[in-house]
């Protein structure tokens, strides 16, 4: 699928998505639910700030010693009987994976959810050599069935679809009865039955990697559905693909970060399954893969490591920033035109895929700082967004808004009618979750310093330009 979804301009994608009422309602309720779950899980844990500091120090230590830990990991994977392939580019990664699959003369490939394999367009590369590639995560499975619709959320990829739309896809593609129920439970159980046969016949299992563990040579996979367990149990060959920064020194740090991931992502103490896989099956085991391959991908990450955006590599892909973002709430995941949406996407996508197509993303932010406050590993997301704007203006000389106004810190889009319209259309909605009795008493990010002392008035529902137009029409009254 690659990182980029389509060639449309940012404003066109935003405008299209602003018109999708169901999607926006679904996104709002998903955000509320995931965010509410996170707050409860974090509250239950206690000392959340200390956990965040610990998460941050682990991730920073790993990045500062990344060469050592990847070396140690590869040594230990080999010791456990596995193979390791270091890939600079998506092409190198895909060519290696194709060769592994071809050597097995395999055509039936099963996958569990993985962002990095989306990043390198692995499915397409495998289809090119005649494989059928099946996504097993329920959300991804639905999208794949629906003529390869795109994920709109890192953790809940099909959040923009309702159950009636999903049922329709099942009727069309799987022969689900037209008068069958559109209950989530019935739809999911139907998939359970259908996918069983695919599991039993799969030849190659492909997974991502939540955290690799250097000192034991393991990878860990975090899921609720049990699909990663099956994908790493039944096929004879397993290939795991990881971005090179997704690593921890030992099981002890894995545990800390998995706890922060599951709480931040879905509000659970642990997900139903945390699978730790170390090499292929042992000689005396019956199930599990006979061959284990780990592909470690750079794809621009070493350049990020050297620069001022290094801290974005701390990310553990929990999407807590997405779930609190007022801009994401309004424009939805597809507007980011990238597999990585929300604040983390606005920071990461331009770094991985360049400013040419994504220079608007750092401006798709109100800089409210809610993302920074929510991040379990303390990535200063809104500061990185500002840094992007600075780079775009100073080094690239191609800001989508006037430099002068921006340098004064004036709101982003005032000089640009498109951005201004989008911004003013969404301002009231953006403020809504924070407001009570037409005032904001609990702001986030930079606004917090103000609201600690006094309330901040919420944005008027009627836009100034609309009010002005009306006033003009009435003859200035």
């Amino acid at each position, binding site marked *: 699928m690659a990182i980029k979804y389509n060639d449309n301009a940012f404003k066109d994608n935003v405008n299209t998505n602003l018109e999708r009422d169901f999607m926006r309602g679904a996104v709002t309720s998903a955000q509320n639910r995931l965010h509410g779950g996170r707050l409860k899980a974090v509250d239950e844990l206690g000392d959340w700030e200390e956990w965040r500091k610990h998460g941050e120090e682990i991730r920073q230590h790993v990045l500062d010693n990344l060469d050592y830990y990847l070396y140690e990991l590869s040594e230990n994977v080999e010791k456990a009987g596995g193979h390791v392939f270091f890939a600079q580019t998506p092409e190198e990664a895909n060519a290696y994976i194709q060769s592994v699959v071809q050597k097995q003369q395999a055509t039936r490939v099963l996958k569990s959810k993985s962002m990095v394999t989306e990043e390198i367009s692995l499915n397409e590369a495998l289809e090119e050599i005649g494989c059928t590639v099946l996504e097993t995560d329920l959300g991804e499975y639905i999208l794949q069935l629906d003529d390869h619709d795109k994920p709109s959320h890192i953790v809940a990829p099909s959040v923009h679809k309702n159950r009636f739309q999903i049922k329709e896809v099942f009727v069309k593609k799987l022969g689900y009865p037209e008068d069958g129920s559109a209950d989530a439970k019935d739809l999911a159980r139907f998939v359970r039955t259908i996918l069983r046969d695919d599991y039993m016949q799969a030849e190659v299992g492909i997974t991502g990697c939540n955290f690799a563990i250097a000192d034991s040579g393991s990878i860990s996979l975090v899921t609720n559905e049990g699909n990663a367990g099956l994908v790493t149990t039944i096929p004879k060959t397993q290939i795991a693909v990881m971005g090179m920064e997704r690593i921890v020194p030992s099981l002890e740090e894995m545990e800390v970060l998995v706890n922060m991931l599951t709480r931040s992502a879905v509000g659970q103490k642990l997900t139903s399954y*945390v699978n730790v896989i170390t090499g292929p099956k042992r000689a005396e085991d019956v199930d599990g893969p006979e061959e284990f391959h780990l592909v470690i991908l750079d794809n621009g990450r*070493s350049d990020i490591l050297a620069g001022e955006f290094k801290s974005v590599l701390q990310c553990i892909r929990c999407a807590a920033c997405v779930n609190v973002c007022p801009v994401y709430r309004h424009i939805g995941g597809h507007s980011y035109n990238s597999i990585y949406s929300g604040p983390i996407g606005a920071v990461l996508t331009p770094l991985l895929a360049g400013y040419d197509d994504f220079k608007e993303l750092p401006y798709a932010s109100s800089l409210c700082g809610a993302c920074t406050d929510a991040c379990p590993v303390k990535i200063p997301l809104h500061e990185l967004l500002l840094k992007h704007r600075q780079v775009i203006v100073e080094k690239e000389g191609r800001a989508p808004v006037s430099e002068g106004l921006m340098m004064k810190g004036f709101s982003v889009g005032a000089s640009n009618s498109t951005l201004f319209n989008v911004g003013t259309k969404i301002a009231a909605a953006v403020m809504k979750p924070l407001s009570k009795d037409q005032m904001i008493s609990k702001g986030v990010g930079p606004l917090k310093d103000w609201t600690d002392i006094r309330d901040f008035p919420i944005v008027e529902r009627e836009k100034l330009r609309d009010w002005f137009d009306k006033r003009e029409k009435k003859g200035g009254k």
Partner: protein
Amino acid sequence: MIQNREKFLEKIATSLNRPFSPTQKPVRNWQHKPEEKKLSHLSIDELMSAFVEQCGRLNNTNVVEVSSGDVKKAVDEAVKQHGGESVALWNDERFRALGLDELYENEWADEGLRVHVWDSNLSRTENFERTNDSNIGIVFAEYALAESGTVVLYSAEGQGKAVGLLPNAFIAIVKKSTLRPRITQAVKEMEREFVEAGKTLPAAVDFVSGPSNSADIEMDLVVGVHGPIYATYIVVSDQ
């Protein structure tokens, strides 16, 4: 085999402004250790209460606490509660030590239940098919974790991963003495037992907290997606 490592790691070292040297293990000097404080002050019975309470929050997850003499009866009851019919289970000495062999070698067959004991002499496909045809899978856990309602399963000879994944329900037997406050203590013990002793971890270490589930359709929680729909944990109180 390891391919393309040197060039890859040298590039990273360059990004970090230093030469690549894999000999010096970095010192971890954490300023924070919040994970060690959580629940660590509780007695074993308090941990048991916390475990039971958390399992109540998971979906379709029962906990039964019995002495070793009553495990056989408890397993039989759990099998019947989950609808009987057919059972797949590990080929595990720990089951025999608890007298469960009487169930799966005689009594269940007499009652007409189909039984598949994981069999290293059969092919993987045959083991998968028989397990997939089973209504219930029975496994033995290395640890139980109070905070998250988790059981920890190791793969090994006779201990097929598929048994805990393919059937509609799974039953995990676990000794109360292996109950730990949270995952923190369990992984510390694994580090000591395996990594520090120079041994490789089991090919699969699975932390399982209740049955499989998904909220991918309209954020509506569905229990039982690819894996089991029901779970029963049987805690052996005197072991």
